[in-house]
């Protein structure tokens, strides 16, 4: 187990390094820079050059990359070239919107996916099961942004139940309002992600139904359905954990779009704005944090899997 954790950990660090290099390089293909933006359209070239110099944009790429990584190793995510604010502090502040949004979306996705997925497996071959399957298939194909707009039209405009945009200025100091303003966005991501997850739960459940231990249980006198619910579903849980890792990445991506649509001051919107202003030091740190987050989840999922699943340990020998 320890050997596995060490190997897997080394892989995590290598993954982070490679991602950092990819993030750094791909951002450099954008035309335009923050110095020109700060200087404005009436600035003379010398001024822009002086600004570029002072922002360190004239340094060789390798030196810029080295500075950035050295900062990260010291725990310093850098400073925005535009606003002068600490990237870490701003990430922390924006995560107060994005993290609750992600958790709510995840909860909604699970609430939809698990019961409906199992149900649709149990109803396989019947009209109800087919309907559920088709519904999930359709919903999973819906672009998040379109789902969001539909929900806004219905719940905000028609019914007037929920706010269509914004986050209260007072933030979580007014928890009810903050919660309300996250509900529609979370529902948007949750429904779409939930539909995708539901298809997975269904097929995992069906697979479990074919397993020996379920058949054995059935042979001992349980009905097929009882056997599936008592013995099959706990086994399904483990594979759901794995898929959740992927789902979380989907939720992070979804939040970028959704925060834009609902004008939520979260990490996604910050990222889009920073790309727009070419605040690249900030963008690369933000992207690395997000990538790191997804990679760490994958790492944890693998470790859990390894610890819990006897078959994997056996393979390791």
């Amino acid at each position, binding site marked *: 187990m320890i050997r596995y954790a060490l190997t897997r950990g080394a892989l995590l660090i290598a993954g982070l390094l490679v991602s950092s290099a990819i993030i750094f390089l791909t951002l450099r293909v954008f035309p335009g820079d923050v110095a020109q933006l700060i200087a*404005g359209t*009436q600035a003379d070239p010398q001024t822009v050059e002086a600004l570029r110099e002072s922002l360190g944009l004239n340094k060789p790429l390798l030196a810029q990359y080295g500075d950035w990584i050295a900062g990260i190793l010291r725990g310093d995510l850098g400073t925005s070239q535009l606003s002068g604010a600490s990237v870490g502090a701003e990430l922390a502040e924006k995560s107060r919107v994005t993290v609750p949004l992600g958790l709510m979306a995840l909860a909604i996705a699970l609430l939809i996916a698990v019961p409906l997925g199992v149900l649709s497996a149990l109803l396989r071959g019947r009209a109800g099961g087919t309907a559920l399957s088709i519904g999930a298939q359709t919903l999973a194909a819906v672009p998040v942004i379109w789902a969001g707009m539909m929900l806004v039209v219905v719940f905000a405009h028609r019914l007037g139940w929920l706010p269509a945009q*914004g986050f209260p200025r007072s933030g979580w100091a007014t928890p009810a309002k903050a919660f309300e303003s996250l509900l529609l966005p979370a529902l948007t991501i949750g429904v779409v992600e939930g539909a995708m997850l539901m298809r997975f739960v269904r097929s995992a459940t069906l697979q479990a139904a074919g397993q020996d231990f379920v058949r054995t249980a059935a042979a001992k006198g349980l009905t097929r359905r009882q056997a599936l619910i008592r013995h099959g579903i706990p086994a399904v849980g483990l594979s759901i954990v794995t898929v959740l890792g992927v789902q979380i990445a989907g939720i992070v991506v979804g939040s970028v779009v959704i925060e834009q649509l609902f004008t939520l001051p979260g990490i996604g919107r910050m990222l889009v704005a920073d790309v727009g202003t070419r605040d690249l030091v900030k963008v690369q740190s933000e992207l690395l944090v997000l990538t790191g987050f997804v990679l760490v989840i994958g790492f944890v999922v693998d470790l859990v899997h390894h610890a819990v699943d006897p078959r994997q340990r056996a393979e390791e020998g």
Partner: protein
Amino acid sequence: MSAPYPRRRGALAAVGLLAVGALALSACSPSGEPKPTASVAAEPDATLTVGLVLEPTNLDIRHTSGAALEQVLVDNIYEGLVTRTQDNGIEERLASAYEISDDGLIYTFTLNDGITFHDGTALTSADVVASYQAVKSDASVQGHAEFADVASITAPDAQTVTITLTKPDQNFLFTLTGPAGLVFKKGDTTDLKTAENGTGPFALERWAKGSAITFDRFDDYWGDAATIGEVVFQYIPDFTAGVNAALDGTLDVLTAVDPNLVSQLEGTGDFTVTTGRTTDKATLAFNNAKAPLDDVRVREALRLAVDHEALVEAIGAGQTLYGPIPELDPGYEDLSDVAPYDPAKAKKLLKESGHEKLELTLTIPSFYGTTAAQVLVSDYAKVGVSLEVKRVEFPTWLEDVYTNHDYELSFVLHVEPRDFVNFANPDYYFGYDNPEVQKLYEQSQTEIDPDKSAGLLKKAARLVSEDHAADWLYNGATLTAHTAAVSGFPTDSINSRIDLAGVTKSAE
């Protein structure tokens, strides 16, 4: 050497305003008649909530260009010796009086009494000298180029500041109404990107990035105290969301209302909508240095082919403009006779120039509405020009068009007042080089008599228009909606300056 770039303000300004202006320009609602406001007593401690579109990226107005910054900070937080009225006139602010010597070289300012910074320190002429010295000596400070002709800045006594120029500069006083003229405390260590230490009637209370900036009244203000207790600038980048926020009572004032959405606000009867003049010039730039646009017949044809009246109507607000100087700036003249709508003549000119069929690309920053580009595509199609519209992010526009001059046609709203100099600068992205215009501009700047100076500008502007150096699609207008409880909110030029000094809010 004459300053090649006398004015430098805002890319972001351009952006913001543009966005604002572009939208503003898109609908034509007659400006709402101000409703008689019931004479309810103003609440001295009221909170005024103002909806704005473009949030500043930081608060350092000394080093960052941008109208979003000037709009809220100048006059409210920071002040200069002189300031600008809504119609771009110049009036005293920190200075109680100023005098310009007969030769136009020596400016003497007398400071008002009892001015203090928000940290309580008294302001003296030494602070003014230090602030202006920094503009003169530090290339990274906004307005540096405009101080090129400043020979010395001195303080004969604590109440007096003297600035000596090497040659007369008709624009110098106006320069002092912008960021270059603002006065900061000598040796201040405040981090200006996130905090402030100005002298204005308001002090920064809080900035929740991505959401709102809050100002509180500064009770020790040297002049007349502000008539509201608190101002919240709420940033709402989406125009529809802005209107929704106004309708649900979140906002007292909404600036830069999309003309297409005005009826929603007016329909409720709760809002008065005003139309404000601006110096926003929706400029269709031609790359004068590059074929086929180096041919004046092609440029003229491209201007004659545009139905400007119809375009303004499609945009929804603003007015036609046929030259580089808008109504609010010195040297304005109606130049509509230079390029009246005449597609037949346009076709003829194109044929003469050997471009009966022409393919051109229009590079446009992506935050502008699509209306102007659509009108151009259809107008040009009628004369045999097929226009490809290339929408790019603003930094890309800055690099490709502005810096590298790699474009054919470009659309940007140039918002800066008095920026005629761009047509007198052959290195500017227009690529327009006419020595006669450059000479006239230079003369207009060194001319001491303002009327004569304006006359010279007018002559130069006509030349530029007759050369068809660019096309001016319209002069933007900006729509502002406010509730009946609000009075005294400025109307004109508010995309570059929102002076809140006289604004009141009643209990309703």
